[in-house]
């Protein structure tokens, strides 16, 4: 699904040029669950943003589903993104002005799904996430765990091939965190590829493979299964 080779990314300020990714290469296969670990500033989030087509690499190649996407313009990236990738963030990132239902519905609107179909799918996914009873509430009215469940629901409602999770349990207590990890595992079991950035060894154990990074480079790679 993902093939990256010699991926590079730099950040420049007036005085300093920081290397965020330094000729990074690895692959992720269809249906895999990969955890990326490493200390703060090692480049994990930068990597995730590039994988999520939110950012552009400065060098190297990035093949997504067999298509070279490094160098895609914003429009093409947005198009690919909305059909194939779902995001789960540490801070949930729900839109405060929209209800639970509307937040989950939003990706379907952007991909142009018809209203009847949207209703069906949102209902389905909310029921699966056991949050249907809260569908008319606004995000601030929910607990952190509930919010993250909504965020996961939103990430999967489009049936994406890939879910990118950026410390999905970082803002949650351990019970809620485990629930979210179980959700991700279930999704993975039905065929969704997952790439997750995490600090937590506990969470990383849910994955098939752990890639450890330091200073923008891959240090080790452990296959768990």
């Amino acid at each position, binding site marked *: 699904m993902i093939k990256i080779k010699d991926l590079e990314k730099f950040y420049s300020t007036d005085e300093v040029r920081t290397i965020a990714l330094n000729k990074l290469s690895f692959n992720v296969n269809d249906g895999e669950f990969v955890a990326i670990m490493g200390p703060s500033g090692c480049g994990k989030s930068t990597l995730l943003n590039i994988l999520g087509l*939110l950012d552009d690499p400065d060098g190297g190649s990035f093949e997504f589903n067999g298509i070279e996407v490094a160098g895609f313009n*914003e*429009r093409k990236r*947005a198009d690919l993104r909305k059909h194939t990738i779902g995001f789960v963030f540490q801070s949930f990132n*729900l839109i405060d002005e*929209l209800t639970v239902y509307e937040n989950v519905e939003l*990706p379907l*609107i952007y991909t142009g799904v018809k209203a009847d179909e949207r209703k069906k799918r949102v209902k389905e996914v909310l029921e699966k996430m056991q949050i249907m009873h809260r569908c008319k509430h606004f995000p601030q009215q929910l607990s952190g765990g509930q919010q993250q469940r909504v965020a996961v629901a939103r990430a999967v409602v489009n049936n994406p091939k890939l879910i990118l999770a950026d410390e999905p349990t970082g803002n949650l207590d351990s019970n809620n965190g485990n629930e979210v990890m179980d959700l991700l595992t279930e999704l993975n079991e039905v065929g969704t590829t997952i790439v997750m950035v995490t600090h937590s060894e506990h969470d990383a154990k849910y994955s098939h493979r752990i890639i450890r990074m330091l200073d923008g480079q891959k240090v080790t790679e452990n296959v768990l299964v």
Partner: protein
Amino acid sequence: MIKNYFKIAWRNLKKNKVYSFINIFGLALGMSVTIMITLWVVDELNFNKFFENHDQIAQIYQSQTANGQVGTGQAIPRPLEFLLRKEYGDNFKKISMSSWNTSMYLQYGDNTISKNGNFMQEEALDIFTPKIVKGEANGLKEKNSIMLSESTAKALFGNENAIGKVVKINNKSDMMVTSVFEDLPTNTDFDLLEFIMPWKHYITRQSWIEDAVDSWGNNSFQMFVQIADNTTMEGVTSKVLDSKIKANPSEAEFNPQIFLLPMKDWHLRSNFENGVQSGGRIENVWLFTIIGAFILFLACINFMNLSTARSEKRAIEVGIRKAIGSNRKQLINQFLSESLLVVLFAYVLSIIIVLLSLNGFNYLASKQIVFPWSNIQFWAFSLLFILFTALISGSYPALYLSSFKPIKVLKGTFRTGRYAALPRKVLVVTQFAVSIVLIIGTLIVMSQIEYSKNRPIGYDKGGLIQIPVMSEEFIGKQDFMRNQFLASGGVVEMSTSSSPTTAIWSNRGGYTWDGKPEGFQENFSWTEVSAEYVKSLGMKIIEGRDFSREFATDSNAVLVNKTAIEYMGITNPIGKFIRDENLENPDPPMQIIGVVEDVITQSPYEPVKEGLYVFDKEGNANYYNLRLNPNKSVSDNLNSIERTFKTHFPNLPFRYDFIDEQYAQKFASEERVASLARVFTILAILISCLGLFGLASFVAEQRTKEIGVRKVLGASVCNLWILLSKDFVKLVIIAFLIATPIAFYMMSQWIQKFAYRTDISWWIFLAAGLGALVITLITVSFQSIKAAIANPTKSLRTE
């Protein structure tokens, strides 16, 4: 998708009530000003469009040159009619001569009313196509016929049928009503056409009119034409331009030029400067169009500033939307939908504001604009206007907000940069610069009016009234009535004159005097007065003496004004003679007995015209001028005058004008501009302050933590107030520096059009600048003091 856009827009509006109020109310104010100005401009541009043939109608104008100065006007001589009909007839479909619009007494039984109308030829009915409600289509066939407007017929006959009734005009001629026409609308130049009588009657009314039939020098008439189908105004003008000189070479010394002024120019472009068309009311149309556009822009700026100021709050939303698949175009559309929603609300509110204030606006602008409920064009314009406003106010925020990079905002590292506030600052400076220009402009217009009002006018206009005496009944009763009025106790002096105190009705040339320069082409204003004219008006004799009933020779005497003495170039004028150039004229020469102080009869902004006051030997009085008794109340005086009047003229309505009110009319046009400008300036300031208030509250909110830290460290409320206010004060000072030269340049241009003008003084700029500063401080202080006195522990906990 659209539904989703509007949903989130609506929730955002509800959530941020203060911002929403400022946005909607500010935009509504701006939009209502624009709508009102548009209605006014459309009314101005549609002036005279009521007439079916308006594209083909023109008035014949004439320019003549005297002493190198070209004068232009509608007055033309009678022989021109025959010349145009005979030699240039192909160019015209219709031609009609016309008298001036004059006020006359119309009497039916015991009922006498005073109405205005013209004497015109039958073809005028084809040119102006008045809508006949009753009677004959051509009501001017018979010499003794009269056509009445509906309201005139109603005033005269009530509900009786007017057709066939006989009306007595000025107690002299009996005229039969032949038709009744629909009243002409107020936005035409003929709104005072309350009756029409036949031209053929007019030319037999008085001997001077009859005599004018072959007099090329007697420019006392008007002519309206409808040009032929295959011609243009310019084309016809080029043909008739020299018609008068060719037909009558003796007029060549005045180089008379005959031309057509198209109907579309009558109202808007009727000013002529030295023979060249130089605008007119069209300048006000432009002025207010520009002001309207600016005020709308000011309101749009509020929207832009408040939307972008709150960008940090919206940034996350933008990031999420982008991450889950929105492209930039969709985000732009979303933000434009939000502005569209705001503008939509503002529009509805603005329509309400317009409806509520239309009466007041009509009063200020002296218009009779009706809200165009049933006008499709208006609603189509409204739709475009809403979209346009939404686009102007929404496009910058939409482009700005949709440009955020999702990774930055989602990581929480998003901070608007050091220069993010720069466009907002530029826009605030623009707002205040426009407001300050408006303040300065309004102050200068007002000071020019005030200056001209304080100009010495040469007589005492308070406690003076005039009674029009055009009816035949008054003839020969001047001295008798003077004694009656004096005896009534309401009047301390009375005189008569051939023209009203506040206008010149007659100009004359063709005179000579000792020392007259070779080739000098004189033109004097000409007023025939009775012996007590100077005394009753309170004019000042600066040399020589007044008319006196003691000297029989005074019937050939003349008083001249100060300007005339300089104009004629004579020293020691007293006792000198002014003679008719035509040696065959049997009238004795006029002897100058006195020089009077200049009296402003025409524009208070122009130099006084050189004038002659001649003794009225023939009883040509058109007005009684009555000096009220200063020891009694005005109402007592008017009561005794009316009683006396009614005793001797029981059938005539008692009509009178206060001279001070008549004089004030001279400022009406400029005062209208000034009062409208004043209203618009106040609105511009209000809108700018609303925006400033919103920005100040945003800044206070943004800096809550900083304020808390500073307070903990020992900053006083005053320190914090200064801290939060000084940024805004800086902006207003920059705005002032930009506005001052612009306003100075524009107003120096404007004031040039007045010959008698005030200096643009520095205090106006200072006052405008200080005013803007004070208003800014008041607006900003509310928020900054509120933030400064807030409990710091609270603000520090907000993280």
